[in-house]
């Protein structure tokens, strides 16, 4: 159950750690977030050079065959450094869907460029009314020759403004809430009749509201079978986001502990007050439990364990609640400083708050976990 890393995995971890330590400190990140584009092509190229973008892909697809464990290693370190570049969107979401659903032609057309760091992808699955339900799709697609024409609106597509390609869910049959009839399409971001309005997210990224007014798309996967593929994709994304969250929790705990040992109030360090000591013990326990459950999910994902989707929901909820507790307490124990843009603590807080929304919040997932319980 404990993950004892192989030599390759250990190498991957130490090389990501070295890269981020050398070129992705908090000031560097601040510069990236404040730039016009809001992300760094230079960083992305070094990720590609280091093989991070190739790590999770299978060897047949030109990757390194590292699977979910390599994603976990990368995302854990990205979480520690608050990396804003769209690894989840491009590699985990789009890369995962291309690899599992794509035709041989689509795989060979798109995956090599992704691995080389030449193309950025985003997934547009949410709509104004959909909340966290991938089956709730009003956008439509009708066949025209070998392609489809998409009409509708997609909401809050993270990294869409940075993307060269989008994967868009749209309905090819059925009513707005039907599980059947949702399909996925590859869409060129610069395609005619696609309009995108960019907005900034709380965690320093860019997302877009997308209007599709008759946009040409290429079918990805089986027609009408998109929901199952999106759900499997969500499970993989949840594992990646959980790893990122655990990395962020660890940093928040370390920062809070260090602060509590130096910051004095009433002539004593914060860490000398028992009520705060116990709070930090609970933060430590929350970290340990989140780490354990995240690893358990990753290992289950790697062998495609039965009941995986239920476990993913369980982990999203438990890790999400743990993260919210730690983030709340980290800000609280830093006092006013925790509220400032200057200190990194608030930025972890915002990233955790953002992750807790994506693909469903902890309350949504704990009830989904309950619903999928065969024994209850």
């Amino acid at each position, binding site marked *: *159950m404990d993950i004892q890393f192989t030599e390759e995995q250990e190498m991957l971890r130490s090389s990501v750690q070295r890269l981020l330590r050398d070129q992705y400190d908090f000031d560097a990140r601040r510069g990236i977030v404040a730039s016009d584009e809001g992300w760094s092509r230079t960083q992305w190229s070094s990720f590609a050079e280091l093989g991070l973008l190739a790590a999770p892909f299978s060897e047949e697809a030109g990757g390194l065959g590292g699977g979910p464990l390599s994603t976990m290693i990368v995302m854990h370190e990205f979480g520690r450094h608050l990396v804003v570049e769209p690894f989840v969107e491009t590699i985990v979401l789009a890369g995962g869907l291309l690899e599992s659903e794509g035709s041989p032609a689509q795989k060979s057309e798109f995956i090599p460029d992704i691995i080389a760091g030449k193309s950025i992808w985003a997934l547009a699955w949410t709509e104004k009314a959909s909340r966290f339900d991938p089956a709730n799709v009003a956008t439509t697609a009708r066949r025209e020759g070998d392609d489809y024409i998409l009409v509708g609106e997609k909401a809050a597509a993270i990294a869409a403004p940075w993307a060269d390609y989008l994967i868009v869910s749209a309905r090819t049959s059925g009513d707005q809430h039907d599980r059947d009839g949702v399909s996925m399409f590859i869409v060129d971001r610069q395609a005619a009749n696609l309009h995108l309005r960019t907005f900034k997210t709380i965690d320093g990224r860019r997302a877009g509201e997308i209007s599709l007014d008759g946009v040409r798309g290429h079918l990805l996967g089986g027609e009408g079978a998109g929901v199952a593929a999106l759900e499997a994709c969500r499970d993989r994304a949840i594992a990646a986001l959980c790893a990122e969250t655990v990395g962020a929790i660890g940093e928040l705990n370390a920062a809070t*502990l260090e602060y509590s040992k130096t910051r004095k109030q009433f002539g004593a360090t914060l860490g000398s007050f028992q009520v705060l000591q116990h709070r930090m013990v609970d933060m430590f326990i929350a970290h340990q439990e989140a780490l354990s459950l995240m690893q358990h999910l990753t290992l289950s994902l790697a062998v495609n364990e039965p009941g995986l989707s239920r476990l993913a929901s*369980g982990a999203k909820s438990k890790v999400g609640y743990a993260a919210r507790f730690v983030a709340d307490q980290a800000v609280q124990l830093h006092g006013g400083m925790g509220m400032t843009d200057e200190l990194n603590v608030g930025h972890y807080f915002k990233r955790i708050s953002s992750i807790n929304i994506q693909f469903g919040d902890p309350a949504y997932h704990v009830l989904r976990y309950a619903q999928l319980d065969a024994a209850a």
Partner: protein
Amino acid sequence: MELNLSSEDAAFRDEVRAFIAENYPQEMRVPNPETDLTKEQSLLWHRILHNKGWVAPLWPKEYGGPGWSVTQRFIFEQETSRAGTLPPLAFSVTMVGPVIYTFGNDAQKKKYLPRILSGEDWWCQGYSEPGSGSDLASVRTKAVRDGDHYIVNGHKTWTTLAQHADWIFCLVRTDPSAKPQAGISFLLIDMKSPGVTVRPIITIDGSHEVNDVFLEDVRVPVENLIGEENKGWTYAKFLLGNERTSMAGIGRSTRYLNRLKKIVKAEIPVDDPAHLEFRRDIARIELDVLALEATELRVVAQMARGIDPGPAASLFKIRGTEIFQSITELTHRAIGNYGLALREQPASANRFMPGPDYGHTASEKYLNARKLSIYGGSNEIQRNIIAKAVLGL
């Protein structure tokens, strides 16, 4: 969730599982094994394990332990706990036994260890005193040397199952002028000695589990002293370290959680306004159990590789007891109006108890489980330990 087991360990697990299924006494399968069994009944499984050579997993082979690896010990713990077996006498096997073979002399080892293993001697723990709470070093019971004997005077309390005990291991003050921790000795006292009186303490669940033990001019042979005089605190701390292992209680929590689900399904209709809250609370607790189990497996795997788990036991004690308390509380609420009823003690088949069978022990378990966050070093003490040892505060 399972450890990644080698084929030998998997075979061992199957062997343990089969042994429990074939040998656990039917007589011990009562509604609440902790309160419903006589002294003789509660020793049955202890004796079966002793005959098999499995009664003391922690002990080195030379003293009668099975010589298991960390992984095998964990498997045994997991299987017995999942099956809901009553553990062998903990104060004897887990607590005083290791103190005797670690710090005792040869004569003491020869005299006490075999009788601990066989269940012939039942041991209880004389640590707590009125007013001591979690501050065990505040021992006031005095032992004054008189020739070949100590004369012991004092009052021990919260003594679990002292009513059955043949022996009590006691912390006594032998040097009243030294600092609190420095003047304490570790003494073994025969419960049949003149001057020993046991008085029951009935707890809020109606059970007689704990006692006051009064010691009045009790003459204890000097040969019953463990190790050196005034070094007892060292031995006591060693023992407390053992007390806090395997406190996660995953097997037990899982069994009670599964029962809780059945009760909720049977008792609470979907249109009950509280139904959703039960579903959510159960899901959250189930995830707490899962995360704690994954943490335990992580620690066991590290220990098997020779990595010191540090104060992981404190984490397991805190979370394991919090989780079990929540489960008993939810179970008590889930049976609705029958949560008003409390089984009379001692339990007897002839006493009327209303409501469905599955709810009969809900009240007593809910009430009894309040002790978990208090005993064995309160959960606040455990947080102090983690704060100091892990966080460096």
